[in-house]
């Protein structure tokens, strides 16, 4: 960890869906501390509430209970203006890159919108250079891509383009919700390395959501293990993976096929 400045702090976050008999607690009194320049993984199986928690942090869902402090101040998202201000600092990458882009716009226009969002007044050449820089950050060639529509690109290319957008906007917090589940193993390692590069160069806090402890171990500093809405174990990545305490963590680790140890199919 490069520094220990506390960026987001959550206490007793709870989210309840439905009411009466159909009441389900998706997130149950969760505490978290995310520091500046830290990569945090939230790991759990499907339905454990990890995406709900991410949406609460993003401000897309309102928590039923608990409080979030952002930069040492209580986070207030009462009016649309508050949200707009908050979202300048927070960005997200989702599972399916094709659902994150406007499919009727060319790549050039998609990247141009990032420049507009920042309110920068740039000449054509400056815009071009900026987009080129962002594309070379993610190992894409802007000259080959700018005239293409999203459907002409592969899933891995789209996901990298998404990271290029993040690079241009340089938010303080990035929420990556299973960004590698739709791409193959090669693109996956490239995307993970890019997330690490983003953190190293821009001091970004990255919240990485996954069901694969292997990926979490590779990419993150801190791991939160989530089971049925509750954080059952949290700590530095090495401790969690190499010396798991909770039974659920052990089960998650044993579910992943490894190459140096036998895989017990039970």
């Amino acid at each position, binding site marked *: 960890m490069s520094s220990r400045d506390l960026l987001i702090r959550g206490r007793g976050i709870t989210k309840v869906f439905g009411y009466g008999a159909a009441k389900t607690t998706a997130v149950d009194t969760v505490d978290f501390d995310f520091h500046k320049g830290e990569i945090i993984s939230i790991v759990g199986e499907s339905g454990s509430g990890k995406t709900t928690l991410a949406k609460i942090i993003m401000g897309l869902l309102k928590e039923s209970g608990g409080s979030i402090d952002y930069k040492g101040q209580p986070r207030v998202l009462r009016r649309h203006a508050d949200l707009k201000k908050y979202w300048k600092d927070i960005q997200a990458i989702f599972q399916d890159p094709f659902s994150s882009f406007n499919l009727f716009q060319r790549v050039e226009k998609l990247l141009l919108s990032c420049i507009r969002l920042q309110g920068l007044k740039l000449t054509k050449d400056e815009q071009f250079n900026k987009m080129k820089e962002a594309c070379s950050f993610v190992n894409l060639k802007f000259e080959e891509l700018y005239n293409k529509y999203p459907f002409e690109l592969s899933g891995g290319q789209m996901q990298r383009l998404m990271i290029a957008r993040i690079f241009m906007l340089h938010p303080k917090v990035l929420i990556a919700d299973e960004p590698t589940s739709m791409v193959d193993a090669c693109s996956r*390692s490239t995307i993970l390395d890019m997330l690490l590069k983003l953190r190293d160069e821009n001091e970004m806090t990255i919240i990485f959501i996954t069901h694969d402890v292997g990926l979490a171990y590779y990419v993150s500093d801190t791991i939160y293990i989530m089971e049925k809405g509750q954080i059952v174990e949290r700590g530095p990545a090495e401790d969690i993976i190499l010396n798991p305490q909770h039974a659920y963590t052990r089960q998650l680790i044993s579910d*992943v096929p490894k190459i140096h140890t036998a895989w017990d199919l039970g």
Partner: protein
Amino acid sequence: MTTNILEVSGLKTYYKTRLKEKVFAVDGVDFVLEEGKTLGIAGESGCGKSTLALSLMGFYFPPLHYGSGSIQIHGRDIMKLSKEQLRTQISGREIAYIPQAAMNALNPTLRIIRFIEDIMKEHRPELTKKQVWDMAVERFETLNLSPKVLRSYPNELSGGMKQRTVIAISTILNPKVLIADEPTSALDVTSQKAVIKLMKDLLDKQFIRSLVFITHELPLLYHVTDDIMVMYAGEIVERGTADQMIFDPLHPYTKKLMGSIIVPEEGMKGHKLAAIPGTPPNLKHVPAGCRFAERCSYAQDICRESNVAVQEVDGRQYRCHFDTGTLKEWYANEQS
């Protein structure tokens, strides 16, 4: 004595574009699968894994067309059979195929048992509904699936359960070969384990004799299959046993693929992952020499110019210009 259950030689299948160009997604594939063995096929997206699986069924729907080559199941060339013969004699009985999004193919308005009745109506018309029901319950119980599933609608089941149900349904006629195309890619690790367990069960209880497993998750193949075959740009670049392929890869492409493995084991943290620069070649304009030359860090002039033949060393095949000694020396140098 082992017999060859599946023999593919010189298989070429292509997609026809709107401009009448032919794109060979499977370009001269030869392999042999022995009875009782399992084979894994690995490779990047777009390398032709799924097209190969689809081609093995013998059904070709535009834009996919059959080019040349033969597919033999127990010595019987299925490419010489008519569509009707294929449907009634081969599909489901000899080969079963589970496509990538199989679980989404279940009609949401029908109970699971109806899919099984549907298969039986075609292949075993003499059975009554009661007999089919008993048979299905028995099969589901042996596979540790709850018979309650049979009365459920697909939307009542979870993703992992749906995938397991699809596998159980497609193997109900005891096919000799099961071709599973990324059966676990949409599932989380816990359901993935359940699906793998089911396939091991099917093999152990001899409901299926052989398995062709397609995925890009190499650690998974290591535990599931005996042999691994790596495809690149429509060709097979290397084949060997799982141990050889994971720990001692020969082809530079396989080497890179193995370098991208991520597992929760000691030493993974801070480990440098191998990235393959560039993208696979456009198969409309196939490069003259080795298809991997453009992205290979060891490529030399000879790679770009002359075509590569398959070399065979100690029962392993690989498609590269260089001998094993030279390749291993390069890998050793890179590591130091």
